[in-house]
């Protein structure tokens, strides 16, 4: 199929860009996990296949080792845009962001940190709490999703989300980059789905796949309920922290090194 060719081509392009980055990338800290496992990136242990437990048993989560994440690498964001048709209008006021790279500069001085931000798929999602029409819901596997067939575009969820994880479709978007996945009409709110359509097929999210393949291997995705999964092993070995855990929303995305 021609669209498949285009997709793999895009991914190859992303890989080529990331390849040059790896050469210049400076790893500021040695990750404890890396030391423990003898230098092999823990993310690489994960294959692109997922073990899908029976319904209601899984609780998908993500750990991002931002010691590995470098400034220039955009593998995850590019892969996400391609996979999910996330629109880029060239106007930062309206661009959609399902996953975005940010730079953290410590106010008291020190090295900069780079990390991707995405929907944290909270166990207690305030966006779902405030949605008047129950368009936002939590799937049986813990993924917080928006039913765009039902969203009325009131944008209350964007007000309630403390992570700025949601964007509104301000304009009509252009063509599909991935025709297997729907794009969206203007007037609805959208956000990261953990690539639920891929998970249902037993694949890992596009950003994680891209990070493993052409990025730094900084993202680990897996089942938080499965004690044998790479992500649970990692969390047990390394101190991780969610963003704004003080709000008590119990995010399923956590970071090391912030």
């Amino acid at each position: 199929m021609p669209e498949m060719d285009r997709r793999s081509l895009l991914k190859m392009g992303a890989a080529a860009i990331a390849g040059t980055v790896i050469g210049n990338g400076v790893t500021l800290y040695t990750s404890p996990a890396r030391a423990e496992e003898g230098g092999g990136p823990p993310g690489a242990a994960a294959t692109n296949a997922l073990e899908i437990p029976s319904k209601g048993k899984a609780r998908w989560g993500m750990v991002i080792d931002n010691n590995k994440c470098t400034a220039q690498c955009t593998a995850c964001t590019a892969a996400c845009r391609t996979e999910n048709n996330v629109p880029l209008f060239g106007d930062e006021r309206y661009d959609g962001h399902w996953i975005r790279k940010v730079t953290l500069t410590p106010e008291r001085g020190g090295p900069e940190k780079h990390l991707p931000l995405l929907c944290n798929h909270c166990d207690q999602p305030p966006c779902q709490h405030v949605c008047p029409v129950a368009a936002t819901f939590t799937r049986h596997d813990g993924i917080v999703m928006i039913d765009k067939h039902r969203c009325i575009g009131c944008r209350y969820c964007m007000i309630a989300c403390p992570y700025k994880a949601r964007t509104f479709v301000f304009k009509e978007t252009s063509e599909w980059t991935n025709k297997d996945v729907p794009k969206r009409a203007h007037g609805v709110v959208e956000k990261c789905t953990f690539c639920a359509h891929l998970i249902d097929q037993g694949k890992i999210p596009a950003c994680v796949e891209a990070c493993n393949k052409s990025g730094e291997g900084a993202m680990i995705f897996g089942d938080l309920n499965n004690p044998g999964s790479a992500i649970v092993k990692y969390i047990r070995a390394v101190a991780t922290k969610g963003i704004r855990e003080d709000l008590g929303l119990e995010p399923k995305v956590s970071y090391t090194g912030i």
Partner: protein
Amino acid sequence: MANIKTKFTVIEGNSAGYWLLVAVLGLLSLGGFWSSYMMFLHGHYMTGMTNAIPWGFPIVMAVYLIGLSAGSLVLSALSSVFGRTEFKPLARISALLAALLLIGALMCIILDWGRPDRILVPFYSMNPRSMFSLNGMLYSTYIGICFVYLWAMFNHKEKLVKLLGFTAVFWAVLVHSGTGAIFGFVGARELYHSPLLPPSFIAAALSSGTALMILVLYATFKFTGRQLDDGLIRRLGLYLAVFIAVVAYLVFIENVTRSYWPGNYAVQKFLLLFGNKYSLIFWIGMIGCGLLFPFIILANPATGKSIGWILVASALVVIGVLAERYIIVIPGQVMPMEMFPGYHIAGPFQDGRMIDYYLSPMEILFGAGITAFVFFLYALSLKFFEMTPDKAAGESGN
């Protein structure tokens, strides 16, 4: 309590001035509908809203109109519930205005949706935990109560009027607490999260509603050449002064609470001192026009008794409360959310920066259009229904 018979009639409504007013209001409302249709057709990039400021002027207007509505209705109910018969002449006008203003507010909210064509979705898929859907129910029942209340007044069902008047006051308090809760219950944003928002919404509703009622009453009576007792306006002015004081107290407490905690210095500095245009709107619009100047005017014996000055104070309050609504809705979004304490954050999604909100012509037309539509319906209702008393006189006048 002496039963004062008030005769309600329709207004003449045949003068060129009346038809000019109706035509101007009608055209403005068409402009409002056009702008909302454009937003629906092309998307919200036509407005000043962005991904960082998802709620713009339409929400400000919705909250503002709800406030005016609740205030008007409470005044209307004063006559039936608390037996203040001197307010009976206002009962119909203010109940009508309350219903129309809430219809306007509901239109502001719904036409501001990204998908107003999905108006039926809330009827079959509803999340009862959402403050928005709870308010939706409160608003629609409130409009219903207003109309039944009007019907009861028209048909002189005194017992029902009393019961409905009581229900209406209770409901207006609920409606306003609910509206405040839309913002106050959001834990993610420092400038929203406050249990004081519901009561301060009620207080601001009463002050702005009373002020609007003074202006509308005066205008209605003046234009139709009817006799309006000065005592009534003065009494309303007195109420207005009391309501302003309550608002001022709540605003004071809220800001002092926030300012006292060192962790909030950055937020409060932004809002009160260095937020440039927002501080300006806060001090001149909200505090100056909404609270300080009108209170000085009303409390000063020299000006507080003068009808002209009371009208000036009312106009100031009506503007000032709009500024207050703006200050509640907008700066809470402009202020960046603190995701990583101790770090400065930079990223492609306008991260870590103050995002300015610019009022677009589209939104101004939208807000003005819906407001005009409310008064368009008001002007027509006065012509067709026996809303307006022959004369409105206070106790002394009878």
